């Protein structure tokens, strides 16, 4: 019988659903708190009981990423892999991979100083959207519509001067309806999709956007498969916008995808599909 471990740092509805489905499928299931687990360079796989496969579900990106590195050091299969988590956790890496693999994505401009970012803005023109390369739930994603806003924001960045503040990620503001799309892909299967509607600029459910089930069209399916392949595959949340001219474009790929709301309305059992994928991935 397969044994599956769910790594958490805060138990949300998603982690409870995964545990419940894994147990229903008859798998020996353990939830493990990342905050109380220790590793060392001397650690061995036999020192732990993580089972056959691990689902990494930390809400803290860096905690989950580094925990995954330790698990892979021990030779324990993790969903998602370190490489995938790293590719998705960093918006710049995601954008580069999407573009490199010819996945339609908004035009995005990178620079590594405020001065060079201003030059990008002067060359491309307003409006653009600035995003932190690491971060979720729409935090610090801001529209840049004029020079005064840019001056204020860049000045704040100079004072805060975090390591990521020196990397300027500027993205075109896609002309779209007041919504975007989120699809959940598990391996090669797009299991559910929803529109996220908002009257404001941001469409994050965490910020109060309304969710509405979306039919999975062939276009959505093909695009999700391409985007997933571009970052390395696994269990992912693909965010898309409906560009007026180009059709669907992928703007983000999420590593530790949240699905609480979508699970309530989706026709497929999302957590069950995730657990089956994880177990099957190590059987191959």
């Amino acid at each position, binding site marked *: 019988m397969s044994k599956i471990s769910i790594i958490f740092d805060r*138990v949300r509805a998603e982690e409870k659903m995964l545990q419940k489905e894994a147990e229903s499928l008859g798998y020996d299931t353990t939830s493990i708190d990342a905050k109380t687990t220790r590793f060392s360079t001397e650690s061995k796989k036999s020192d732990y009981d993580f089972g056959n496969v691990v689902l990494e579900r930390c809400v803290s990106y860096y905690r989950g990423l580094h925990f995954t590195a330790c698990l892979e050091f021990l030779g324990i299969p993790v969903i998602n892999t370190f490489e995938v988590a790293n590719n998705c956790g960093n918006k710049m890496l995601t954008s580069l991979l999407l573009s490199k693999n010819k996945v339609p994505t908004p035009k995005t401009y990178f620079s590594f100083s405020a001065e060079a970012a201003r030059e990008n803005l002067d060359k491309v023109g307003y409006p653009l959207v600035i995003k932190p390369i690491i*971060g979720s739930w729409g935090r610090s994603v801001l529209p840049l519509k004029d020079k005064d806003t840019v001056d204020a924001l860049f000045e704040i960045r100079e004072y805060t001067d975090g390591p990521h503040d020196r990397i300027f990620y500027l993205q075109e503001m896609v002309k779209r309806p007041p919504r975007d799309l989120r699809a959940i892909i598990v391996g090669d299967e797009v299991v559910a999709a929803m529109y996220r509607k908002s009257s404001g600029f941001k469409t994050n459910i965490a910020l109060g956007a309304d969710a509405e089930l979306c039919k999975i069209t062939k276009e959505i399916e093909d695009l999700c498969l391409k985007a997933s392949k571009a970052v390395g595959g696994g269990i992912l949340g693909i965010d898309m916008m409906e560009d007026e001219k180009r059709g669907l474009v992928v703007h983000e790929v999420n*590593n530790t995808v949240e699905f609480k709301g979508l699970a309530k309305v989706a026709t497929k059992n999302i957590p069950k599909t995730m657990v089956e994928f994880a177990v099957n991935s190590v059987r191959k």
Partner: protein
Amino acid sequence: MNCPDCDGNINVPADASVGEIVSCPDCGADFEIAKKGGSIELKQAETVGEDWGE
């Protein structure tokens, strides 16, 4: 259980698991359900970090 901050009464559901967050109805503070030895305790919940999310 009693709130470590204000001594208010926090109702921990019977099916709650370690790692879940409960809030004090009196003062609003958030606590994480933790296990120490064989017993359950409440510890201060982490605040939302810059890297939190999907």
